[in-house]
């Protein structure tokens, strides 16, 4: 029923974000953008992007946010056995003819983009990355991105590191969108909306990684669906193209809560 693994290392990335390196019992294949459900027996189950997968080595980045992630931070250590379901959903699409791509990440939304950057590099596609954080205290993985990207630009909201401002401001100051075959983004939805809008206006191919409440994870309960096309984040996504996203009135606006009621995206 489950995919099993053992934690081989825990790295504290920031006071509230940790990298869990896991050794899986069996080899799996996954594409960047796909996600896993991590089950913590009798505590809960949460969706997580794959931050890297190489042979049986899996990286998961977990931010301390709610009940389950707090439990993980307090109890998971080297040797802890983990229970996973997946990989689920559809990942980013990369075309053979791409030569140069741009990654735009906000906070721990960078996880799937790191996995993507590594695969792009393996395919001989160069990429640049724009990484946005609240402050230098919450910054992580910049060196990892530098290892696989040509240029890495960092912004912080408070200016404690790199450019002072939003990661989307870097689109104006640091790069020329037209230079890229595709743009991939992951992070806060309003940030991604801005990226998608800018790319679409200039006819640049763009894909974004969406987050909604994931319950069944396999496309049957419908709670993660987006109106008006009825697309399910867990099955039709979590990666969607800009073309599709601009047809979704829920994108950048609404999500459904546990009851199935629509809530404003700002209430998340």
């Amino acid at each position, binding site marked *: *029923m*489950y995919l099993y693994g053992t934690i081989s290392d825990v790295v504290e990335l920031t006071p509230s974000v940790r990298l869990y390196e896991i050794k899986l019992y069996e080899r799996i294949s996954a594409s960047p953008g796909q996600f896993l459900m991590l089950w913590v027996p*009798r505590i*809960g189950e949460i969706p997580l992007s794959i931050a890297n997968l190489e042979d049986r080595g899996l990286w998961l980045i977990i931010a301390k946010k709610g009940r389950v992630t707090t439990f993980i931070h307090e109890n998971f250590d080297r040797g802890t056995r983990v229970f996973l379901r997946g990989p689920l959903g559809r990942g980013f699409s990369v075309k053979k003819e791409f030569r140069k791509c741009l990654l735009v990440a906000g906070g721990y939304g960078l996880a799937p983009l790191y996995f993507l950057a590594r695969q792009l590099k393996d395919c001989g596609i160069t990429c640049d990355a724009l990484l946005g954080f609240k402050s230098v205290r919450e910054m992580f993985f910049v060196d990892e991105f530098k290892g696989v990207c040509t240029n890495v630009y960092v912004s912080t909201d408070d200016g404690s590191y790199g450019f002072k401002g939003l990661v989307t401001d870097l689109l104006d100051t640091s790069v020329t969108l037209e230079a890229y075959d595709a743009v991939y983004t992951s992070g806060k939805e309003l940030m991604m909306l801005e990226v998608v809008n800018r790319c679409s206006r200039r006819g640049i191919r763009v894909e974004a990684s969406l987050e909604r409440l994931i*319950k069944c994870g396999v496309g*049957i309960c*419908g709670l993660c669906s987006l109106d008006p096309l*009825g697309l399910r984040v867990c099955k039709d996504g979590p990666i969607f193209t800009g073309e599709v996203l601009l047809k979704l009135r829920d994108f950048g606006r609404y999500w459904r809560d546990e009851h*199935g*009621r629509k809530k404003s995206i700002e209430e998340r």
Partner: protein
Amino acid sequence: MVNLSVNLEINLAGIRLRNPIVLASGILGVSMSLLKRVEQAGAGAVTTKTITLNPRQGYANPVFVDLEYGFLNAMGLPNPGVDYFVREFFEGCERLNIPLIVSIGGGSAEEFYEICARICKCPMDAVELNLSCPHAKGYGLEVGADPQHVYDIVRRVRKCFSNKPIFVKLSATVPSIVEVAEAALKAGASGFVAINTVRAIAIDIYAKKPILSNVYGGLSGPAIKPIAVRVVYELYENFKNVPIIGVGGVDSWETAVEFLLAGARAVGIGSAVVRRDLEIFNEILEGLKRYLEVEGYDRVSDIVGLAHEVV
């Protein structure tokens, strides 16, 4: 090649379906846009998720387990409550071109009545009473196992729905399904949906713990198909003219045909969506048409209950 002369239309308690393949309750039925996708995928009718009087949050994760031979779920009837449901489904501009069955659940006859009073004037085609969910405390099977209780609920609902079909969704795990079915019919039910998931548990042997947060869940998929076929067969044997929507492990045209032969007039699709996604509807329809053609039937209704014929 599809023979256009094969007629897939069926009459289900007075509602006309373009084909007998119905989206079962609890699957995708949270929004009009998802149901629209199911319509476009080929379904003959769709059923909403079970709606209750007050909003329900459902259970915490995990709510779903994929077993090789089936699926286990305990969603916990999450829904926004009837008032929100009516606003979202009927006050928007989206409309379906196929019949819409609204599934409702309550803890008492009074609660069922109150929900019905709020939905009976909405553009819907039939109501399904969830008297069989195996894992929601105070709901479903907990009110649907007792024939007298079933009788009272259906009677109250009938007061609201004077001219729309009422389907009662039954559980396979009651002492006598015939007694429950009989009580429902006496009170004015128009047909049956059989079966709901079967109460079950899955334990992970390495975690050494039950997987579902609710511990107990409902088993669906191939594992319960023979049970569902038995219930449909038994209901048809006892109430020949009462329409039945057969549900439980339908994941191919062959299983759909088996339900029709057992006596189901329509067939519900549920967790098969996990493996086949929405293509399942078209796959079944194409296979069903071919089967009817090869076996020499003009209409799908010709094979309903055929397995009961002596010669």
